[in-house]
């Protein structure tokens, strides 16, 4: 069982595009101060940022745990929202249910979940339509272990 070394919980507010992404940049600052490898930082922060933007855009708010264990660094994110009816379809690059407002913000081109998958070593999505979605994704610190 992995030993949890650090856990920090962030609140994500719906449709607040001005503040959207601030939690993820705070995670970046934290990882930098802990002297993690820059490539690992960039990958984890892309994962956190895309996941955070999804909650801002689609859900009615949520929470994101940033967790460091002796085995991995990851984010566990849970929201209250519409849920994802077909996760496999949502994972396809280019598939999007974004509104014009989201596209005007530069998001909603159908690359959010694919980007999370691309940059993480593990990804688990569970969703209930009409209730919400949980996403856990992160990076293994010792891939050979």
């Amino acid at each position: 069982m992995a030993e949890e070394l650090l856990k920090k919980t962030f609140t994500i507010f719906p449709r607040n595009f001005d503040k959207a992404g601030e939690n993820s940049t705070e995670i970046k600052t934290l990882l930098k101060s802990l002297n993690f490898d820059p490539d690992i930082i960039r990958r984890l922060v892309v994962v956190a940022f895309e996941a955070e933007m999804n909650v801002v855009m689609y859900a009615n708010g949520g929470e994101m745990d940033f967790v460091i264990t002796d085995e991995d660094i990851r984010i566990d994110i849970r929201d209250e929202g519409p849920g994802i009816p077909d996760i496999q379809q949502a994972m396809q690059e280019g598939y999007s249910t974004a509104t014009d407002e989201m596209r005007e913000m530069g998001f909603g081109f159908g690359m959010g979940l694919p980007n999370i998958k691309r940059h993480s070593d593990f990804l688990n999505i569970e969703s209930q339509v009409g209730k919400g979605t949980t996403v856990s994704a992160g990076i293994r610190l010792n891939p050979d272990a």
Partner: protein
Amino acid sequence: MKLEEIKQILQCQVLTPEMDLNLEVNTVLASDGMSEILAFHKPGALMITGLTNIQSVRTADVADVRAIVYIRGKLPHEKTVDLARQKKITVLATNLGMFDVCGMLRENGLKGAM
């Protein structure tokens, strides 16, 4: 390529004049879609975009972008430039469109990161 050269080639306005234009960029990320920038991030890249809202700077920060060129004569809000300053990202703006900006930089030797 130095940012100073990019400024000359694209006839850019410099929105963060206090920042060092002697900094180098070696690769380019060009898109109005922020997830495309994040998909192909390379540290120290130049980001070219027509998206001028605050999310463009947050994306640049997440992707460790060194400088942004806003195109098509669009200028970002001052709060967007302020965030870039905080994140030590140089901000330039040009009246040229995406096709010409990319073509001119490619002709001068810069290559894409995607």
